């Protein structure tokens, strides 16, 4: 086994667009195991933080460092977008695509695709066009497509937005299975129940900066800042 790409260190990371600060400055360090939940109101910089960690956001200042060179780190992380992006291909071809990019042997690709189709319960829809799936099915497919490369780190941007209870449970089961296989997960959510169920540690974003962070038990049990307490109460934070 190759050494982990974690810990991840962000130093003085800021993202500014057209004179407006979307994120930062953020200093943050993420350890090698667990599931980090990022919560916060809309526009607080959750998505921007996630994208900055993944390296798809241009940083105005600061640096994002993994324990291995960037080139290697990029290949060992995956990202699931808020609205799942479906390739205009069949369900099976959507799963096959990231593996084809790696030029894996055909037999290996076939085996992994079949395995993942079973895990997300879409075996019977394998040849259906992916854009015709329901919202929950699309999100499951997007997560499977991210995990099929066996990434060390998985980023998810509100994977359960607009989904019902059953779909949410199916997705949480997928994430739990990934955690059991030692995948590091970092995700944003608006669902505080979900945050409590899944988190091993949590980050509260407000106005583009990390307002409070800590292990799940401390974070949810005894919030240190007034704003986080208010957020948990359901108050609207300006």
């Amino acid at each position, binding site marked *: 086994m190759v050494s982990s790409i974690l810990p991840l260190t962000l130093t003085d990371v800021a993202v500014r667009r057209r004179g407006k600060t979307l994120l930062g400055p953020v200093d943050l360090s993420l350890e090698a195991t667990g599931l980090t939940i990022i919560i916060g109101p809309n526009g607080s910089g959750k998505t921007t933080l996630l994208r900055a960690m*993944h390296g798809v956001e241009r940083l105005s200042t600061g640096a994002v460092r993994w324990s291995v060179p960037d080139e290697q780190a990029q290949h060992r992380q995956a*990202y699931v*977008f808020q609205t799942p*992006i479906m*390739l*205009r291909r069949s369900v099976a071809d959507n799963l096959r*695509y990231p593996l084809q*990019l790696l030029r894996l042997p055909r037999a290996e690709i076939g085996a992994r695709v079949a395995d993942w189709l079973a895990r997300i319960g879409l075996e019977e829809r394998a040849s259906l*066009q992916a854009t*015709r799936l329901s919202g929950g099915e699309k999100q499951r497919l997007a997560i499977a497509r991210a995990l099929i490369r066996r990434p060390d780190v998985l980023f998810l941007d509100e994977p359960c937005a607009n989904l019902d209870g059953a779909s949410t449970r199916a997705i949480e089961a997928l994430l739990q299975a990934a955690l059991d296989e030692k995948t590091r997960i970092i995700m944003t959510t608006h669902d505080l129940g979900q945050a409590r169920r899944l988190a091993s540690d949590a980050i509260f974003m407000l106005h583009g900066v990390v307002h409070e962070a800590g292990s799940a038990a401390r974070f949810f049990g005894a919030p240190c800042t007034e704003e986080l307490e208010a957020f948990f109460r359901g108050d609207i934070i300006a």
Partner: protein
Amino acid sequence: MNDIYDGLLSAFWLVVTLDADLLEISLRSLQVSLTALVIASAIALPLGTLLAIRRFRYRRLTISLLNALMGLPPVVVGLLVYILLSRSGPLGVLGLLFTPTAMIIAQVIIITPLIASITHQAMRELWAEYHDLLISLNTSGWQRIRTLIWDGRRNLLTASLAGFGRAIGEVGAIMIVGGNIDNATRVLTTAIALETGKGDFALALALGFVLIALAIGINVAIHWLSRTEREGRW
């Protein structure tokens, strides 16, 4: 009205009796335009896609230039190719003037900007949709182009068919560089021009109807083969 009726009638007879001249002219039309289409598509489809995904300094200028070239007057293209290929021209030694090859060259120049421009429009939308995913998956530039071309193939088909339509109906350029030589470079459009000049409207109309039928036939055949408009939205 009479002329049209006569034209239809004689077109019918020419087709039913498989008139040897008509067959030869039609096949040459198809050969020239389809070859030009294949070559132009091979250039324009990757080029249009590249323009959609690559950011470079003179990108906007290139795109507006391409759009302007869509309206390139065929006679002028014909004239330029003629000068290049004529005995005294820079490529005169190749002896290509008044051959089907010269006609193909002229048509490639005419339809490449058209196909590239339509490709660019279609690919721009698809790229906006795929952008984040393909960046996240660490795709190389070439992998991105291939993915977009494959997943946008039905849009590209439309682009190619537009190019074919322009090529098969084009007369100005191929008349100049081909010369409308019987049994050598005569195609449907140049034959129509000739017959109209001679006053043989029935034959000209017959050729015209065959040309239209050919264009429709090719379009329908390709759409049918590629199963567009059958599965879902694309």
